């Protein structure tokens, strides 16, 4: 893009009317996106897009805990699992309960927030690295409990998971199957896309507002120097607990949507790697920077899928056989990305301005 056009774009964005126009353009583009994708590369990619939006929500939630408040949470997937299971148990044939989604998402969010506080309360007095291990253990405990809670009383149906989860239904339109509205047929993946898009937009809005709020600044203060923050009159324990609960809330909502999208949940979906993946998104994008985290989440959700579709044929052509299956390749690249980003670009691909400033300054506080 030429510099002149760039400047014209900037002027457009500065003018309030121009801002509205560009917002409308973006909304129109985003709403035709699933149809364009389906027409060009097929419906699987709309599903991948759905999952990418889901991961964006998760990453934004984790960003509150890791990015804003500086608390390393390695068991974030536990809240996702709690949300997904509380949705599935109350909206499936498993117990024969079928509650509506607008009730279930808040229930999932509240349950996840409750678990967030439950986990946070005993551990927040501790130093960061202890917290990391405890949250890691907590994530595993939740998974083990879900896997084993089918005996003596069958609650979670154990490793088999829960089938036939009700999809979100809005005004008589089920998101589980194709529906025709105004003469256009919308497959379930498209309907979920719109729902996820709206919720992701709300999440982004909440996060950006939080960042500049009193609480957001308190979180950043705690991240930078807990003792100084305390001296400034911040109730560090409550504010940290709030970060945990807020982060968990987003995880819980995302979990419920995941259950609705898949129509099926099992402990398999909530392994440690999911937590690590979400952490990678936050770290790669730029801890504490909302736009950076969104970028990181979209990148890391979509790139592995591209890899899956290209790595195997390319290897077959080059070596005549598949040396690295895409799943291992993905993990390997994630691991390397974590190391390299921390070594070379600790503030992430798209860092926030303050974060860049503090990380490039000679010495960070809190180190000996």
């Amino acid at each position, binding site marked *: 893009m030429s510099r002149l056009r760039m400047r014209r774009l900037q002027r457009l964005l500065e003018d309030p009317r121009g801002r509205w126009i560009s917002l409308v353009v973006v909304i129109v583009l985003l709403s035709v996106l699933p149809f364009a994708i389906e027409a060009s590369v097929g419906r699987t990619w709309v599903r991948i897009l759905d999952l990418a939006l889901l991961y964006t929500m998760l990453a934004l939630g984790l960003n509150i805990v890791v990015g804003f408040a500086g608390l390393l949470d390695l068991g974030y997937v536990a809240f996702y699992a709690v949300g997904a299971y509380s949705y599935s148990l109350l909206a499936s044939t498993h117990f024969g309960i079928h509650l509506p989604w607008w009730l279930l998402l808040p229930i999932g969010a509240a349950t996840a927030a409750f678990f967030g506080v439950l986990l946070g309360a005993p551990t927040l007095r501790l130093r*960061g690295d202890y917290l990391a291990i405890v949250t890691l253990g907590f994530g595993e405990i939740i998974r083990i409990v879900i896997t084993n809670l089918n005996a003596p009383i069958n609650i979670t149906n154990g490793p088999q998971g829960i089938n036939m989860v009700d999809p979100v239904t809005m005004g008589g339109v089920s998101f589980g199957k194709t529906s025709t509205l105004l003469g256009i047929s919308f497959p379930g993946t498209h309907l979920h896309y719109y729902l996820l898009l709206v919720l992701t937009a709300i999440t982004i809005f909440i996060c950006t507002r939080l960042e500049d709020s009193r609480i957001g600044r308190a979180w950043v203060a705690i991240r930078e120097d807990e003792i100084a923050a305390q001296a400034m009159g911040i109730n560090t324990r409550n504010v940290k607990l709030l970060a945990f609960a807020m982060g968990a809330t987003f995880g819980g909502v995302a979990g419920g949507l995941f259950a609705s999208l898949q129509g099926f949940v099992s402990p398999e979906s909530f392994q440690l790697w999911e937590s690590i993946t979400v952490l990678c998104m936050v770290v790669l994008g730029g801890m504490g920077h909302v736009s950076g985290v969104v970028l990181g989440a979209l990148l890391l959700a979509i790139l592995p899928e591209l890899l899956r579709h290209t790595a195997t044929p390319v290897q077959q052509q080059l070596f005549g056989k598949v040396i690295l299956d895409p799943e291992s390749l993905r*993990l390997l690249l994630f691991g390397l990305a974590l190391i390299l980003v921390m070594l070379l670009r600790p503030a992430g691909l798209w860092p926030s301005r303050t974060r860049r400033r503090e990380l490039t300054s000679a010495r960070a506080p809190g180190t000996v």
Partner: protein
Amino acid sequence: MDIFLQQIVNGLVLGSVYALVALGYTMVYGILGLINFAHGEVVMVGALTALSVVNALMSAHVGVPAPVIGVAALIVALSVCMALGFLIERVAYRPLRRAPRLAPLITAIGVSIVLQTLAMMIWGRGYHTVPPIIAPTPHSFGGATITSVQILIIVVSALIMVGLLCLVHFTRLGRAMRATAENPVVAGLMGVNINRIISATFLIGSALAAVAGVLVSSNYGIAHYYMGFVLGLKAFTAAVLGGIGNLAGAMLGGLLLGLIESFGAGYIGQITDLCQFGFLLHASGEIAQRCSGNSSLPLFGSNYQDVFAFLVLVLVLVFRPTGLIGERVAERA
């Protein structure tokens, strides 16, 4: 067979392995104030390397005597793990020594993922059976049985721990390590080459991890690419239980955790058996029906074994963050 005595034996065997791994965590933590997340993976690499050596020598049909195979496998595993530990510190931790705390923790997770994936690529996803180098002859005493492998595990770990304590307390290297742990800057001013001490710490820790890996895989008879993760977490728990940064603490914590786990797994079924609570039988017809006859209805079974370690970890951190015999304050913010 006496179940109580048997659980003590099992707990001690498990605990000695935890203690060996926990020493690696605690030494690094004492000196760098860093949790070496990748330590569990080093144990895994040690186990799998030894396994490969054993398999190669056994299939060579040259009639190498079993003890020689065992020693050769141990030596190869030791050198691979030590090289790995040295490399991990150089690549992932040293450049970040002055960075914020979160940074080395994140690279550690990265290293752990990379090692696990590489191991999965080299050794595959499946479980490997470890050929018995030492015949697991059972010896019985007082109603419990202990195999010769288990005796070996307890003896070897005890010897190593005594050796390590002597090294740290009576040698020049040990004194330098203690000085660095106390205050790296002052130790540097006194002429201690800190980088060399840190490297030495990683080398020793990784050597212990290699031994632990070989011992644990020959005890259970299986090894797989995922074994390091849970083992590492539990060993870390053991280190915290004893007081992280404290060598004797890691040993005590390891043994205790082993005992807690084996007793927990052995008795939780009995303790949470719903049939022993009379009021439940009256309250619920279904429970009464399922308890009729001589059956039991445990609420939690031994498949919750892995949960104990985490519960212990949380409880210790809440009620006694310094560990049982630790002096260091957990919060050094």
